């Protein structure tokens, strides 16, 4: 497991938070009834969230905790790491637990 690319911000700023919430809302409309992880991640709003860069990580972790959804791709893309041990095959709730634990260990606050 690698560490974060840069020190985590203490708290997300309000402007970024508002943009993030708007993009999350739009993504949930764009994805429709798709079952494809790839299609979910390629939705324009999801791509814009990734494009917000490392600053969005605490917001992704907060969203993962309070309204769990498919944020693993975005977290992997924005942090450059994956807390899932290589060769292990955790199910979705365990992946959530691993990401939240990783975030706390890295000092993220959300």
């Amino acid at each position, binding site marked *: 497991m690698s560490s974060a690319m840069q020190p985590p911000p203490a708290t997300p700023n309000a402007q970024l938070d508002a943009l993030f919430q708007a993009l999350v809302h739009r993504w949930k409309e764009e994805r*429709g*009834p*798709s*079952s494809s*992880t790839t299609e979910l991640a390629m939705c324009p709003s999801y791509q814009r969230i990734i494009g917000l860069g490392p600053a969005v990580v605490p917001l992704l972790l907060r969203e993962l905790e309070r309204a769990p959804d*498919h944020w693993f791709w975005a977290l992997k*893309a924005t942090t450059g790491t994956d807390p899932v041990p290589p060769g292990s095959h955790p*199910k979705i709730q365990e992946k959530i637990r691993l990401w939240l634990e990783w975030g706390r260990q890295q000092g993220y606050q959300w």
Partner: protein
Amino acid sequence: MALEQYFPNLATTGYTTTSAATFVYNCIAWAAGVTDDWWWPDPMGVSTWPASATRAETITAFEEAFQSLGYTPGADDRLEPGFEKVALYALGGMPKHAARQLPNGLWTSKLGELEDIEHTLEALNGAWYGAVVSILKRPRSSA
């Protein structure tokens, strides 16, 4: 949004909603009998996929996933006593969806993060899932 807006055929074929929406499992997992995980061979490697199946978004790879569960390709959509069937939908050669046949001859599907429904096979044809391109079967006793 109502399901009929995604799948207009549902308005004429009818359907029954059998579960609430959840992000935890998707159609592939549901067709495989799994309700606590999301199966997809995404290139980022974030979703679960059977180890013995190719991790690729191809019809062959999806057939391999169900072959790992004892299914055999080349079946038709008829109800055969003693057999369980899975239908794969694709659009433009890209896998989009899987449905599992019920003992009453209808099919059960999880619609992305939306609800599970019972439906006819053609009810989900259209812009989101395309159409059925492969049906696999296995003896129901091996489930």
